[in-house]
């Protein structure tokens, strides 16, 4: 019974991880930019929603959260990554610059919204005993459906629309990017917009469940990155699945190990993948 409970909880967490990871993977796949400030978009979206919720505007809040995340992603692309890439910036330069932005935003959020824990107070997150010994909150279903709907929408976008197909092509064949060079500006902006929008629902749901703090983006970032690599770079499906898997692993691990090791499990999985299967679940070998 414990196992089932942990599994269900893991799925709920994993669904949110999957959303953020897919966003990160989309951006990384299409632009080869290691968007280390991805978690920052998450923080911003979460706090924007929180602010609107507090003035009783949940719907507006959700829209504003998405808009804020998208704006942030586009801003990063336009004002940070693009200038850097103009002068043969290595991915490491990109990494440091994005990290700087993450530090700035984290502290700004702390100054404006207050430091420490903040959560949206809703009955949705309150679990009830649905089966003997199994507690589920309504938000479990919300999280699952949001994830499913968004992934369906995303895959429709990627397979049915012209822009989506182009993004996918870029993700699967980075040489295309090299061949097109900077002429792919618009595609890259599109990737950032869509990828960043993906974090908003996860941020909103997190605000309802575990709550936010100004440093929350950091964890989100690490998980997204881990999932992208475990899933195999260039594979959205892989990233989403790996995100789900990491969430489940983190939770189900408690069946077998003591609670303090739960967090380490994700990174053990990541480390193992990098050493034994660097191409990830779905990827092609990437050992240049």
């Amino acid at each position, binding site marked *: 019974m414990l196992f089932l409970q942990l599994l269900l909880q893991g799925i709920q967490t994993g669904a949110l991880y999957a959303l953020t990871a897919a966003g990160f993977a989309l951006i990384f796949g299409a632009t080869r930019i290691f968007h280390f400030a991805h978690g920052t978009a998450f923080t911003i979206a979460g706090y924007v929603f929180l602010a609107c919720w507090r003035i009783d505007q949940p719907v507006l809040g959700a829209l504003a959260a998405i808009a804020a995340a998208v704006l942030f992603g586009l801003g990063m692309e336009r004002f940070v990554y693009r*200038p850097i890439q103009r002068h043969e910036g290595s991915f490491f330069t990109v990494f440091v610059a994005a990290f700087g932005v993450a530090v700035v935003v984290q502290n700004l959020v702390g100054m404006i919204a207050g430091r420490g824990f903040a959560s949206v107070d809703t009955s949705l997150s309150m679990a009830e005993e649905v089966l003997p010994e199994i507690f589920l909150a309504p938000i479990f279903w919300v999280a699952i459906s949001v994830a499913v709907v968004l992934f369906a929408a995303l895959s429709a976008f990627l397979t049915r629309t012209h822009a989506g197909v182009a993004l996918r092509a870029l993700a699967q064949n980075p040489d295309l990017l090299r061949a097109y060079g900077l002429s792919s500006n618009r595609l890259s902006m599109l990737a950032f917009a869509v990828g960043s929008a993906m974090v908003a629902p996860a941020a909103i749901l997190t605000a309802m469940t575990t709550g936010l703090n100004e440093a929350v983006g950091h964890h989100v970032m690490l998980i997204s990155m881990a999932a992208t690599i475990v899933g195999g770079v260039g594979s959205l499906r892989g990233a989403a699945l790996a995100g789900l898997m990491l969430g489940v692993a983190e939770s189900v691990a408690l069946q077998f190990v003591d609670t303090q090791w739960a967090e*380490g499990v994700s990174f053990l999985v990541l480390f193992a993948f990098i050493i034994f299967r660097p191409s990830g679940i779905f990827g092609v070998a990437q050992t240049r």
Partner: protein
Amino acid sequence: MIAYAANLATIVAIFAILAATLNFIVGYAGIFSVAHAVFFGLGAYAGAQVALLLMPDALLACIAGAIVAGGLSLCLALPALRVRGEYFVAASLGLQMMATTLFSEAKAFTGGIGGLVGIPRPTLFGIEVGVLPLALVALALILFLTARLQRGAFGRTLQSVRDAESAAEALGKNVAAAKTLAMAFACAGAGIAGALFALHLSFVNVESFTMDQSVLVMAMVIIGGTGTLWGPVVGAIILLSLPSGLAFLPFIPPTEVGAVQQIIYGLAMTLLMIFRPAGLVGDLSKGRATS
């Protein structure tokens, strides 16, 4: 006053060692490790244990720190030999996160979150010494060694591996050995820095060896200029003293000082990367020293 300046100089010297050794693998071997604090920590714990259990001899502590950190650098070498670029950064992140958990849990060796307290003042051959001269000597030695290695054949080997690994191999270079060796050297250096750190603070705990620390050291390297000899030292001095002016800005409420410092600091990192990616010391005309 002098004690305070000495304290600060010691910290700067210790971090300069860290930055210089990290630069050795980042700037020359192209190994972008975000786990340098792990080896800093290993050295600190090893040095602290030597001082606590055997005797507080600085040389012994440094040697122990170097051996433990250099030896365990294989943990990092393993992924470095298999993957490059973003993958390796991710692997080192993973290593860093796992190490943080291990440092918190392996209480016998690390004292857990509570840390190791009451590390005795260092001695050298039985005479009590300050950490500052030790740190300066160690820094000078490490800068000398890195300069020698960088300019010599080993430095060329690393750079060739960085630029074109397969071509270096085709010329008979044992890439795995070169990388492992570079890593062992850099991590041993970090271990020495760790041992000195432990002796200096007389207290160590896991909070000094988290990813934040790794990233700080990395920022020193990047901001100073990768692949340059003095860049990391300059980076260490700047990052450790840059906020000093801020503390005296009167219009910042005291409760926000920390946040404002971090904001300016983060902003500096980002702007520098956009407008001067070669770092402060790096030669701009060459673009980045590494690719």
